């Protein structure tokens, strides 16, 4: 770790993590009650997305896939709009933050867009960051993007959220190499961040983002995470994983370990932690109310925005 965070920084990070956690939790509830559709929880991976967003500026581009709730919220996406998006309401996407692409659903395709954006940034200060899952690294467009980015030394960071599953498909059936960073190391510079405490991962992510910013060269960063919920609310992980494995993973929940760390090191008091949690929940509750109370979408919009 390069430097100890101030108490204020720790409180801020914890708040962001709790908001992401509360968002996931609330979204799963809203899905059960029929208010939103199929939803991919980011449980176990909240810290990755929060850290990515924290170490970029809003002038850097961010190209998300669909598990990046923490990053989108941190970059300023209104939480009620994110609920709207997952509720199949076009208005959600009208609130995407600056220099941020809309959530990408067709796996891997966002890497080519990000490469195009990075080309446009060659002579600017900003960089482009794109996220993808370990499963996405099987798609041709991903190889094609890495290759091009390296040929032209583009200022781009490809971040692979390696949660070791793509729906039911384990990494061993997905990748010829168990480490995504190694699989691509002949094409592009790569880095790998293993499982670990949230603060350590955060500092490593910061260092890799700084590297891309200073060298203005491409990098693929693999970050090991745990997918603690099923793929989406539609998925039943017990069909392809043992309950024991799932339980074991859940004992490693990074946010719980972070709380323990903060307490044991006397960095924050139990009371302080609790009040941050309460405030995060209140923020998300309020956003959920806003979402639920919003008038439904006009029905005459479906031809809007089709052509310039």
């Amino acid at each position, binding site marked *: 770790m390069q430097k100890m965070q101030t108490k204020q920084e720790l409180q801020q990070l914890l708040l962001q993590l709790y908001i992401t956690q509360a968002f996931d939790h609330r979204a799963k509830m809203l899905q059960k009650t029929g208010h939103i559709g199929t939803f991919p929880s980011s449980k176990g991976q909240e810290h990755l997305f929060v850290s990515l967003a924290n170490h970029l500026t809003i002038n850097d581009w961010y190209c998300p896939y669909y598990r990046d709730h923490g990053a989108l919220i941190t970059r300023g996406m209104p939480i009620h709009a994110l609920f709207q998006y997952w509720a*199949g309401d076009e208005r959600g996407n009208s609130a995407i933050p600056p220099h941020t692409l809309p959530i990408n659903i*067709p796996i891997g395709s966002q890497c080519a867009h990000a490469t195009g954006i990075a080309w446009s940034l060659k002579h600017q200060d900003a960089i482009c960051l794109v996220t993808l899952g370990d499963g996405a690294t099987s798609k041709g467009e991903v190889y094609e993007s890495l290759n091009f980015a390296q040929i032209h030394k583009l200022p781009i960071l490809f971040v692979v959220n390696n949660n070791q599953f793509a729906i039911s498909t384990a990494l061993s059936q997905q990748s010829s190499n168990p480490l995504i960073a190694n699989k691509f190391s002949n094409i592009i510079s790569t880095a790998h961040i293993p499982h670990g405490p949230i603060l350590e991962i955060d500092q490593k992510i910061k260092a890799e983002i700084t590297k891309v910013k200073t060298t203005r060269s491409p990098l693929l960063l693999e970050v090991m995470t745990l997918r603690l919920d099923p793929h989406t609310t*539609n998925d039943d992980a017990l069909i392809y994983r043992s309950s024991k494995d799932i339980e074991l993973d859940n004992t490693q929940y990074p946010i719980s370990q972070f709380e323990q760390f903060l307490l044991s090191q006397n960095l924050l008091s139990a009371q302080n932690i609790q009040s941050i949690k309460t405030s995060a929940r209140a923020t998300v509750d309020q956003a959920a109310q806003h979402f639920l109370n919003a008038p439904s979408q006009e029905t005459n919009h*479906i031809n809007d925005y089709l052509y310039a």
Partner: protein
Amino acid sequence: MHKPDHQTACMHMVQALNQALYDEMSADETTLIAGQDIGRLGGVFRVTQNLLDHFGPNRVIDTPISETFQAGFGIGLATAGLRPIIEFQFLAFMHSALDQMIAHASRLRHRTRGQLKCPLVYRAPYGSGVHAPEHHSESTESLFSHIPGLKVIIPSTPSLAYHLLRQAIQSDDPVVFLEPTKLYRIKQEPNQRPPKLGEVYIHREGTDATIFTWGAMTYEALQVAKIYETQYQIKLMVVDVSTLNPLDEIGILQAAKASGRILILHEASAKGAVGNDIYYLIHRHLNINAKYMRQLGAPNTICPYYQNEHLFAPNQQSIMSAINEILL
């Protein structure tokens, strides 16, 4: 597997497709299936449930997320004498595989002057109704129907799905087999007659007007036909086009002649679409007055996210208005 008495049992389309795969894979050792999450999970819709246990990993292959590869891999398998079935998770994710389908699968027989053939099935769920985010509701069947050499099949009931999938696997041509997700879990009694791949399927006879349709819209058309019969003693013929490429021109013209009043009904937009081909075919050969012909589909725009999906596809009300117009 589902029950062995599948010819008579009331089942839904997922069960029927699963049974068809099981029966065909049992009957023909050269068949095999490849796709994402089709093994242990049984596919995201469970169409391949238990097939891995029965046929093992050499015939039930979980692929990485690689649609273009999957399509081309299937072509290689088929060229080598096997009968692959390639599953795509959703129609929208099959679009990246169009290159392999257009450049290779559809042309292999033609460009080798019959020396090689490409007997394979590309299966995908399609259409609205799953409440998933963007890209899970499209009806782009016409894109595939535009390609000479590709057969395009869409079933509309569980028992048609059963028979048509088996016939598609047995066919010596590459077949795009699209399954309407909206009908996946609706149980229906088996149809009395089996369908024949390449021919229209007449669900209901009638002489007052003829509805040509396919996929999930067939279900809506049948509901409407029942209402017209019981409430107004009006008999609507419901024709499931079912093979969108190549079209069964003779079957379509015969059915059109029966009433001379035509509704062509589909979930997709009519722009550049198969419905227009049917319209033109009937118009050219039967010279029916345009006021007795209607085409009903989605507006030519991007399919709304799921909350407003219902604004997109025709519904019973819009179908009835269209019928009333041609009956006047």
